[in-house]
């Protein structure tokens, strides 16, 4: 391993460990300020995580090994996603493609879904079932949006998204549409408004959170970190599509641009969390179909360009 690769890996590790929690902190503080509350400190997620890892877990008597290991499995899937996607603006250390990413996300979803079923509660099953319904929209949207982006960059490997040399500028709206579709899918995956209220305490209205209801202590810490990582990686991917639209090629500029865009998306999320109300879960398909439509149009335009 050359020194530059080692440097790169070290940088990635720092970014993957620190940035997600920092972003969640910024998001929470900003949302609180927008709602005229004082809110927590920006570094609060770090303290929360430290507190959770110290605590002992409460584990339901009815659960089995699936419940106990699912957080580790799903976090592993997300760590792999973070290793194969160029979410931080530079090439990922391992070559991966959109198919691998989609199925890694599916692995995490299956692990958490089964863990929710393992609790044997009404809420767990409800969450898993609603999450499955949402995934019917999210998965094709992500696949199509990333495919359209891959077609524009002329490379099926995800690193092609971050390799500025092959980007043909002026993608005829393909990339903005794909980015919009991916952003909507990311909103579902990360439980933002109007899909889900991230701070709700009413179990009946929960979707993703209902699956995690039984978790506590160290396992909850893993899941909290995982959701922060998910937010960062998905926003980072959206940022890559937008950067390619803006034809930004210089690695350093891309890196800065990615951080800036991720921050912009976090601010946007905070504003939307404040402005919007949660939709009834049965109304969600009407919203999510837009994501699917955007990605389909992006694909159509990308197909016509060739």
């Amino acid at each position, binding site marked *: 391993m050359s020194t530059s690769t080692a440097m790169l890996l070290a940088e990635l590790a720092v970014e993957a460990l620190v940035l997600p929690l920092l972003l969640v902190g910024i998001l929470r503080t900003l949302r609180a300020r927008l709602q005229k509350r004082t809110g927590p400190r920006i570094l609060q997620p770090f303290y929360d995580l430290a507190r959770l890892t110290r605590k002992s877990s409460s584990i339901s008597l*009815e659960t089995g090994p699936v419940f106990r290991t699912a*957080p*580790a499995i799903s976090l592993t899937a997300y760590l792999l996603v973070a290793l194969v996607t160029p979410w931080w603006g530079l090439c990922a250390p391992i070559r991966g493609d959109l198919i*691998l990413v989609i*199925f*890694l996300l599916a692995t995490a979803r299956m692990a958490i879904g089964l863990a929710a*079923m393992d609790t044997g509660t009404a809420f767990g099953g409800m969450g898993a*079932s609603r999450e499955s319904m949402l995934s019917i929209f999210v998965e094709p949207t992500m696949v199509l949006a990333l*495919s359209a982006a891959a077609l524009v960059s002329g490379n099926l490997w995800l690193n092609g998204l971050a390799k500025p040399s092959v980007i043909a500028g002026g993608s005829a709206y393909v990339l903005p549409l794909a980015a919009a579709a991916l952003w909507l899918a990311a909103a579902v995956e990360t439980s933002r408004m109007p899909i889900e209220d991230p701070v709700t305490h009413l179990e009946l209205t929960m979707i993703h959170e209902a699956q995690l209801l039984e978790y506590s*202590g160290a396992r909850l810490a893993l899941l909290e970190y995982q959701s922060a990582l998910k937010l960062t990686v998905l926003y980072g991917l959206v940022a890559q599509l937008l950067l390619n639209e803006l034809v930004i090629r210089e690695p350093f500029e891309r890196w800065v641009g990615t951080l800036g865009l991720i921050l912009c998306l976090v601010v946007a999320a905070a504003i939307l969390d404040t402005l919007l109300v949660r939709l009834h879960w049965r109304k969600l398909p009407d919203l999510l179909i837009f994501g699917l439509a955007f990605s389909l149009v992006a694909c159509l335009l990308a197909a016509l360009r060739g």
Partner: protein
Amino acid sequence: MALFVILLFVWGLAALMSIVGPLHNRGTRAAVLVAAGACLLFFLAEDAFRNPLVIALPPQYCLVGIRPCLKFDWLSGWFLAVLAFCTIAISLYAPSYMNHLKPAPDMRIYWVGFVVLLAAMCGVLLAADAITFLICWEAMALSSAMLVLTNHQERATRTTGLIYIAATRISTLFLAAAFLWIHGITHSWSFAVWHLTGQIATWPAILLVIGIAIKAGCWPFHLWLPAAHPAAPAPVSALMSGVMVKTAIYAFLRFFIVQRAIQSTDAAYLLLTLGLITAFWGVLFTLLQRDLKRLLAYSTVENIGVITCAIGMSMVAFQFGYAGIGLTLEVAALFGVLSHALFKSTLFLAAGAVDIAADCHNIDKLGGLGRRMPRTFLCTLAAAASFCALPPMAGFATEWMLFHGSLLLALDSHQPALRMGALLLVGWLSLVGALAMATCIRFVGVVFLGRARSLACQKAHECNRSMQAGMALTAVMSVVTGITAAAIIGELLHAINHGGPQVLAVGYSLPMGQFVLLALASAGLLTSWLAYHDRTAGTADVQAWDCGSGGLTARMQATAESFAQPIARLFGNIYRYAIEVEFDGASPRLFPEHITVETHADATMESRVYAPIVRIIDRLGGLIAQLQTGSIHTYLLTMFATLLLLLAVAGYYR
């Protein structure tokens, strides 16, 4: 060839063993011989894979003027290897399973049928001419029908047997018509001579596609699959679903791609369309099934759809001149056959184990079996992961090749329609994949996780060692073939290109080894940290959150029905899904004493399309029955009229 004769001899001996000899352990002896034969078959397959060989049987075995020909090549070898694997697993599993079956089946019929089915499948996979193919195809259909009817004392089983036999008849009808048509053009029964292209190939190709699609269980001919599987014993379902429907996939590949016997763009589009609808339809109905084996049968419909898509797309790619991409998709289909055979046999065998342990195959009455049957659960989990195409399982390699090939087509092609078509295929298949995931969480979650929903479930215990071994073999193989997919696919590409024009195809180029190592390291570290943390920080045993209602019961957890509901609502028009809720009591709105929820769903094809057809046939049958009065005069008159009619037709066409 000598090996093949020995193999048939061993299997014949197995059939004999089940008929004669001491009564106890007849099944075990037959099973051991069948498994030994399957091991031989594996060597035979390996040999065929590397050294292609054509054998014409000696002249004394002439059938209708032609010498039956057997062709051993890589394609046969691949399918024979799949057959061998599944057979070994199933014959390990079968004896103890059959002993548990109530009412006790006739083991003689079962084992003889099993051996004939195996031999017939070998015949189909090896046949090099239409007559041999058709005879073996028939033997396969009839012997499998015999096995489906193992439990023929029950009326429901006899009905499904009838549906299955009818489906095989129609399939053979279409196949025979196609073969006759092609024979009319080429004047040969030998597959090697058939090369039809252009306009002339269209109709025979369509007939062929329909005939094979019925066997494969493609929409709209999928009807027999969900009917036959619940009725058959688990090992038979595993063999039929794991391998027998794959002979249809083999036929698609043999006629349309490998042998290039018939090249027709229409057939390619027809196959692609059938595959797309089949995959979606299959998974949609998997989601609503409550019978464990019926659910698995519908999921087979889905998997067949995905494999058919790969074949159709591969044909399209070949026809547009993208040979490399066509080959990639062809390999996707081939690997799909392997991965599906492995995980679906595992799932069917596990379903049989659950059925025996809990004496129930309605998933709404099961639950919490994971802790009582940990090994069965582990096998099911591995198979389900492969089914959902989770990396690094074999299913993922299939899906990756298919998606990657289609995306490559979208990238390389210059026709916007083709590019868009390839992208739409990927989107559609990811929709199917998301639905498949939902069905998997539902089925594994409801059956194996949560609380036991019945007393029988609470008392369930693990199946015995030989059944575990059968399941474990296929489950472990789905993991192993997934991790070593790159090497296997490389070998496959090498065999395909051997001795022919070299076509450069994309192999399985993900650095899977790296991923597996990283995943193992990460998951291992995290789980051991969690375990260490649990030990040092301690855990508190609590009740799951019940909103303070005073304890949860098994009836409060999500049922299979309620799990499927959000998605069923989305596709309500296809299912004709309806939910009726009734409140009962003195003040039903505020203080309901009883709440009844009823959901209705309908298999649209069965009720809207097939039922009217069956009614019409029934009515026509009634008309014909009027002739059968038992009066010899009517019969003679009918025969005479038929003769006159045939003479007139012959005279007209002369």
